[in-house]
């Protein structure tokens, strides 16, 4: 059974864009999902134009012994390629005229922001206090960083990565996962994978276990009554956190980041029931609540 699934750089963002478009048609936040689809589509274009970024060979060599993620944003020196990715994404979204004027304004603002300021902003997003960052620019900047890190992760071989038992952070870049997906096709059938919010790597984690605190008792699967069977939240009565879990068995098209964004109703209901999200969706930033 594969413990780690590295991202397919040629398909990931195109598939996500397609899924977001499908979901946009029937979701109450359809307009925003259209924007997310445009971002994902631009990410696809950006990653296509991205030369494989240079990996830090020295760090990669040392990471297995240290049992640390080889592409951790804390250790890795970002190359300038991500600025190119951001420019492609901003231009791609700005070319769509149907979005609210605020979208064009942010695109304009990001085009004239200096490289140094963008790097400082990226550092804040990648650091612990990132979610209090400017919520208008954050989805665009994180999208560029996703394209960059996905290209990096896709260039790895599975043996470059050390898997610790029951990892709660991405073994490739150390980021928190967005959501879980229970895959339905061999060789992944029935296994739960966590999907990284930055580099889109997926790693195996035993099912019926809190991905935040590791508790195995008091785990429930909550969903919107009458809603899609493929979309649930794995809630933990111990730490009161949840991550959504998507079942390919019920809908083969589910995509962790897209479906998480398209199920805000579930988030609202769970917040009322006293549960909190274990991690943010990189395309939807909000102040701490």
């Amino acid at each position, binding site marked *: 059974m594969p413990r780690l699934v590295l991202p397919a750089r040629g398909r990931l963002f195109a598939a996500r864009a397609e899924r977001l478009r499908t979901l946009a048609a029937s979701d109450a936040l359809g307009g925003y999902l259209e924007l997310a689809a445009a971002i994902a589509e631009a990410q696809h274009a950006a990653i296509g134009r991205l030369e494989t970024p240079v990996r830090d060979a020295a760090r990669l060599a040392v990471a297995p012994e240290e049992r640390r993620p080889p592409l951790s944003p804390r250790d890795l020196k970002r190359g300038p390629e991500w600025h190119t990715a951001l420019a492609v994404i901003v231009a791609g979204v700005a070319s769509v005229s149907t979005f609210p004027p605020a979208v064009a304004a942010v695109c304009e603002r990001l085009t004239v922001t200096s490289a140094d300021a963008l790097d400082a902003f990226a550092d804040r997003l990648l650091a612990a206090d990132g979610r209090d960052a400017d919520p208008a620019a954050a989805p665009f900047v994180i999208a560029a960083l996703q394209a960059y890190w996905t290209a990096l992760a896709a260039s790895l071989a599975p043996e470059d990565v050390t898997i610790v038992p029951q990892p709660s952070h991405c073994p490739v870049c150390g980021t928190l996962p967005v959501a879980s997906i229970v895959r339905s096709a061999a060789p992944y059938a029935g296994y739960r994978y966590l999907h990284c919010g930055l580099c889109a790597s997926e790693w195996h984690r035993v099912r019926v276990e809190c991905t935040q605190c590791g508790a195995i008792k008091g785990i429930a699967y909550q969903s919107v009554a009458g809603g899609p069977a493929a979309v649930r939240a794995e809630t933990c009565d111990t730490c009161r956190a949840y991550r959504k879990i998507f079942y390919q068995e019920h809908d083969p098209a589910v995509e962790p980041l897209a479906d998480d964004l398209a199920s805000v*109703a579930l988030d609202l209901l769970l917040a009322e029931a006293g549960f909190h999200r274990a991690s943010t969706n990189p395309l939807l930033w909000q102040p701490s609540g």
Partner: protein
Amino acid sequence: MATLSRRDFLKVSGATLAASSLAVLGFTPQHALAEVRQFKLERATETRNTCPYCSVACGLLMYSLGDGAKNAKASIFHIEGDPDHPVNRGTLCPKGAALLDFVHSKSRLLYPQYRAPKAKEWQRISWDEALEKTARLLKTDRDANFLAKSAAGLTVNRWETTGFLAASASSNEVGYLTAKVVRSLGLMAFDNQARV
């Protein structure tokens, strides 16, 4: 977002959405907020267990609906092999795959029952009564048929007229204890999980 390690109380509400990327980029969360008022949560569980049939002891995932409240009975609606279990890796044999019907079977035995010799009817008895009766029958049989020495005069301490079949879903420790208890009585016909 990326490397949050501290406990993070991130709740999604009308207020947080109104200050989120969504709102500041010119989209309105009003539809979503209005829509959610007619929705409610449904709670399901997935529970690990071990197949009760044979000594292979396959891992199971049992799916049930219910809010887990004390007075509400959870109802199992699906059982499948546990993909993470090292023995069966998600698979089940036809008997195991039909466990749901076993759980909900109308003729499932729920309490001890007794049918007196020559009687047609089963009668319900208490656990104390059942254990008492079983112990009595075992003791009588052992007293009558215990074989301390073989025909050749060797000490054998055998009890050959009773057999013992133990559960499949037992741990090593339970297997050890069962063997100790059963063998110390001199029982020869005995099968349990410890054989596997």
